[in-house]
C-alpha cells in the first residue's frame, strides 16, 4: 500500500541558495514523523511544498500515491482539503474572533451555517482544552499557549488525514509545551491521521514521534525510530541531540 504522504526528491532554490536538495520522506496513516534540524535548514519550506504554498523546483508530492504537483487545480484543491496545518507563528486571523478562526474553513469553504460552525468550533475548543469562554475574544488577547491551542483546533476541525505541525512548542514554558505534546499525540491517535512535525525541542520530539528524521544541508541525513535516537551512530544527530556547538555541524551566528 502506498504511503499516505510521500515526498520524493524535492528540490527548492530560494534567493540563490539550494535550500532543499532532494528531500525524501514518507509517512503512513496513524504514524507521526518528526523532522529535526537547525534554524534555516529548510524545515518550514519542506512543509510548504506539499501544501502548495511553495512550488518545488523538482520532485514529487504523492498523496495516497497520486502526484499532486501534476494535478489540475480543481482536483488538487479537493486533495488539499485532506491537509491541516499548525503554523509556526500561529497565523490566526486577527480580524476575526477565536471561534470564527477555528471555524473559518467550515464557514468559508464548506458552507456550513454559522450556528452549526460555532457549535463545532466550541466542540473543537473543548477538545484542545481551550475554555469556550474565549470563543468571542480576538486571538491577540490569548496567551501564546492558548494561541497554539486555537491554531490546533483550527487545524483539526475538518478532520484532516494529514496534519502538519510547525514548531508546536517553541516559545512555551515546559509544562505548557508538554500539554501541547500530549494534545498532538491524542489528536493524531483520535483522527488516525499521518502527522509530520517540525521541532528543535528534543523533549517534544521524543514524545510525539514514532520516527525521527534529520534535515541538514537540504537532505535527510538520518532517519530512524524514536527509540534509536541515542544510538543513531550519526555524528550530526548526536551533536544536535546533545546540543553541542562543536561537531560536524557549524553553528552560523
Amino acid at each position, binding site marked *: 500500500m502506498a504511503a499516505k504522504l510521500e515526498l520524493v526528491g524535492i528540490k527548492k532554490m530560494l534567493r540563490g541558495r539550494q535550500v532543499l536538495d532532494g528531500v525524501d520522506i514518507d509517512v503512513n496513516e496513524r504514524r507521526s514523523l518528526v523532522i529535526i534540524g537547525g534554524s534555516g535548514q529548510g524545515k518550514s519550506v519542506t512543509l510548504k511544498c506539499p*501544501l502548495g*504554498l511553495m512550488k518545488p523546483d523538482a520532485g514529487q508530492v504523492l498523496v495516497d500515491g497520486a502526484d499532486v504537483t501534476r494535478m489540475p487545480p480543481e482536483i488538487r484543491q479537493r486533495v488539499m482539503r485532506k491537509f*491541516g*496545518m499548525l503554523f509556526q507563528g500561529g497565523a*490566526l486571523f*486577527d*480580524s476575526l474572533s477565536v471561534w470564527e478562526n477555528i471555524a473559518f*474553513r467550515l464557514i468559508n469553504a464548506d458552507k456550513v451555517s454559522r450556528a452549526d460552525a460555532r457549535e463545532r468550533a466550541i466542540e473543537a475548543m473543548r477538545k484542545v482544552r481551550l475554555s469556550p469562554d474565549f470563543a468571542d475574544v480576538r486571538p491577540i488577547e490569548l496567551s501564546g499557549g492558548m494561541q497554539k491551542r486555537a491554531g490546533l483546533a483550527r487545524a483539526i476541525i475538518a478532520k484532516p488525514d494529514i496534519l502538519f505541525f510547525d514548531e508546536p512548542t517553541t516559545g512555551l514554558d515546559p509544562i505548557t509545551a508538554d500539554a501541547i505534546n500530549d494534545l498532538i499525540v491524542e489528536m493524531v491517535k483520535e483522527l488516525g491521521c499521518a502527522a509530520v512535525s517540525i521541532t528543535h525541542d528534543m523533549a517534544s520530539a521524543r514524545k510525539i514521534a514514532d520516527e525521527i528524521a534529520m534535515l541538514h544541508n537540504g537532505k535527510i541525513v538520518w532517519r530512524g525510530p524514536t527509540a534509536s535516537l541515542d544510538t543513531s551512530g550519526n555524528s550530526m544527530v548526536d551533536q544536535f541531540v546533545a546540543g553541542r556547538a562543536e561537531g560536524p555541524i557549524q553553528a552560523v551566528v
Partner: protein
Amino acid sequence: MNPFASIGRGTIGMLSEIGRFSAFAGRAIAAVFSPPLFLGQFLRQCWQIGYLSLPVIGITAVFIGAALALNIYVGGARFNAEQFVPNIVVLGITRELGPVLAGLMLAGRVSAGIAAEIGTMRVTEQIDAMTTLSTDPFRYLIAPRVLAATLTLPVLVLVADIIGVMGGYLVAVNSLDFNGATYLRNTFDFVEAQDVILGLVKAGVFGFIIAAMGAYQGYHSSGGALGVGRATTNAVVGSIVLILAVNYLITAFFVE
C-alpha cells in the same frame, strides 16, 4: 557607474513591475467574476472604503470648490468674464478635480490601509493559513476590496461634485456678490451629462487602481514590519502615479 546602464535598468525594472501588476489585476478581476462572492466581506469593505471616506471627501471638495471659485473670479476679471464662475467651477469639479482629488485622497486612506492589512497578513502567514483552510485569498480578501472600491468611488465622487459646487456657490454668493438663484441656474444649465459621466468613469477606474495597487503591494510584501511599511509607501506612490497617468488617458480618449 554608467548612467545609461542605470537608466536602462530602471526602465526595465519599471516595465516588469507594470507587467506583474497587470497580471495581478487580471487575477483580481477574474476572482471578482468567479463565485463564491464573499458578500459579508464585500459589504464590510463598502462601509470601510465608501462610508468612512465621506468626511475626507466632503472636506476636500468644499475647500477645492471654494478656492476654485475665487481663482476663476480673479482670472475671469482680467477679461471681463467674471460671470463664468459657476460654469467653470462645475466643469472643473465634475470632469477633473472631483475624481482626481478623491482618487488622491483615497490613495492615502484606502490604498495604504489595504496594503498594510494584507501585508501584515502576508508576513504573519495568515494568507498561507487561509490557503490551507481551502479558501482562496484572491476571492476572500482581494475581490471584495477591489469590487467595493470600484463601485463606491463613483458614489463618493458624485457626493464630491455636489459638495464642491456648493463650496463654490458659498464663496460666490457670500464674498463675490453673485445672486444665488442665478448662480445655480447657470450651473445646471451649463453642465452636461457627459461631464458628470466622464468624472464617474474616472472614479470607477481610480477606485479599481487604489484597491488593486494596495492589495498587490501587500500581497507581495516580505520581511516583517519593514516590508509592510515599504508596501504601504509603494501602494500610495504607485496608485497616485497610476491615477494621474490614467486620468490623462481617459480625458484624452473622451475629448477625441
